[in-house]
């Protein structure tokens, strides 16, 4: 359990200014999710916090103590690497036991905890395998196991579930949430999965090119994105943006409507267009519509909604769900 504060943190790799300047406060016991486009600096930020990289400027403190120059071991954080970084010469069991061994736990404790973690992670059958004999998802689970057996001050997860199947992912999500609820340990979690971000986070940090675009609770970001970037990034499929006449109507440069707030009808509605491809997910159907003014939008229909390619359709945004943005892309007050 720890508070983590970043003050004016910067990071350059040679010429590349990956993180120009970041300030961030993470409270005791918070579950913070970092999201952002691939390459925006999420892993780098995690590595800076972990102490695996030196900051190019600024300070990092944990529990109010400046740890900028403290080596990783001194920071007492556990981490799941995006690349897994398993120990190739150790079996699954030894991999998971390693941090406990380092902490000097007794053999029985280690055994118990490893067995426990392996059970949770569906790895019990693989305890004696070496990493190279595992499937991608199994490797990733070992990496998770290695992090969660310990009781660190905080956890750093770098896309820990990316290679797991949906069912397992839901399980693991719940496991991690439960772990968090139990231990109340600070967690920082990088993910590309909207569901994970929305359901697990106390606070989401949206990063873009090494800058923080917005920090807030999941619903805050969903409902009140500060700017076009956040609006477009949170939510999948992404928010539809309309400009021109449609926007002017709402006294905005651009307006945004999420697919789920765009009612689709074959009979009539505010905006007219032609149905394009329909994506049937089973639970929902996403219909891509080309509006008559040429703009391309997506609307969500029920799972069994059918519309043929080329049919005329009508869309009606829920007025109170419309997001308005000015020319610079910043959100306008509702």
């Amino acid at each position, binding site marked *: 359990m720890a508070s983590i504060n970043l003050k004016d943190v910067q990071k350059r790799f040679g010429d590349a200014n990956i993180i120009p300047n970041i300030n961030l406060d993470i409270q005791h016991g918070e579950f913070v999710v970092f999201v952002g486009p691939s390459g925006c600096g999420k892993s780098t930020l995690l590595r800076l916090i972990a*102490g695996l990289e030196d900051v190019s400027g600024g300070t990092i403190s944990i529990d109010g103590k400046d740890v900028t120059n403290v080596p990783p071991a001194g920071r007492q954080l556990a981490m799941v690497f995006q*690349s*897994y970084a398993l120990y190739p010469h150790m079996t699954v069991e030894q991999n998971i036991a390693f941090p406990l061994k380092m902490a000097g736990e007794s053999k029985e404790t280690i055994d118990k905890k490893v067995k426990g973690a392996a059970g949770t992670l569906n790895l019990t059958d693989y305890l004696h395998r070496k990493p190279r004999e595992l499937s991608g998802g199994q*490797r990733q689970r070992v990496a998770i196991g290695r992090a969660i057996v310990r009781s660190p001050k905080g956890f750093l997860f770098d896309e820990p579930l990316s290679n797991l199947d949906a069912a397992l992912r839901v399980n693991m999500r719940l496991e991690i949430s439960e772990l968090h609820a139990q231990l109340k340990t600070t967690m920082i979690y990088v993910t590309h999965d909207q569901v994970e971000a929305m359901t697990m986070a106390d606070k989401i940090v949206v990063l873009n090119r090494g800058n923080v675009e917005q920090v807030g609770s999941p619903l805050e970001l969903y409902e009140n994105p500060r700017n076009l970037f956040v609006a477009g990034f949170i939510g999948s499929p992404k928010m539809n943006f309309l400009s021109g006449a449609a926007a002017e109507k709402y006294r905005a440069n651009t307006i945004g409507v999420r697919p789920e707030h765009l009612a689709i009808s074959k009979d009539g509605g505010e905006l007219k267009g032609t149905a394009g491809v329909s994506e049937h997910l089973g639970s929902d159907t996403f219909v891509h519509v080309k509006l008559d003014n040429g703009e391309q939008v997506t609307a969500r229909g029920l799972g069994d909604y059918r519309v043929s390619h080329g049919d005329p359709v009508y869309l009606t945004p829920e007025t109170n769900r419309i997001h308005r943005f000015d020319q610079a892309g910043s959100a306008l007050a509702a």
Partner: protein
Amino acid sequence: MARRVTPQWKTGMTILAWAVGFLIFFPILWTILTSFKTENDAIDPSKFLGFTWTGENYVAIQEQRNYFAFLMNSVYLSLGSTLLGLIFAIPAAWAMAFSPTKRTKDVLLWMLSTKMMPAVGALVPIYLLFVRFGLLDSRIGLIVVLFVINLPIVVWMLYTYFKEIPGEILEASRMDGANLRQELFKVLAPMAVPGIASTILLNVILAWNEAFWTLYLTTTNAAPLTAFIASFSSPQGLFYAKLSAASTLAIAPILIIGWFSQKQLVRGLTFGAVK
């Protein structure tokens, strides 16, 4: 990989490393210094730097033997045998590292065991064969000999290095339509550069320093620097300085080769290639 080391640590390491380096290098340093002494200064161990520098030993040596002829032979022999060795060993090491069978380990050990025969034991048979095929004092004959005696080592070294490379990268190249040759030389070899560099360096050194076969199977046309040295070790009279000069001449080229290959012995390249 990206963490700064503290300046104090770096300074400490610098001092320690230089001290260790100096100690290990000292006998060679002393040899080089001695080569610039007069014979009388050479036998006085209290003269470290405080002596009158002279190049007379080098002059004397060059007057006696044509250093460059020996040097060229050494270069031919070591490079030739190394090249031949790589051509044979890279495929072999690839086979054993990436397509191991139950017998791979046995083959590896058998290869090493071919080196267990004391060279003198094989001298007469080999000499007779060389006489028979007219290979005595020919570079090609010696290149072949140096190549086979070092082949097990080359295979072994490459095998170890190849083992560290994730096989998936080679698989990727197969998917990309690379044939075996391209897989070996376009993908595997560049990735194994540090390993191959140290293997080359090692093999060149072993060939360069091989002093049994090179002495027995050559007279003049193919005689390398080992023969050159053998004509300066323990002549009558004081000889430390001249011996040192000859030794310096024998070591210098390979030190230079070492210097260049040292730059190749860089950090492993596999990082970041696979998850």
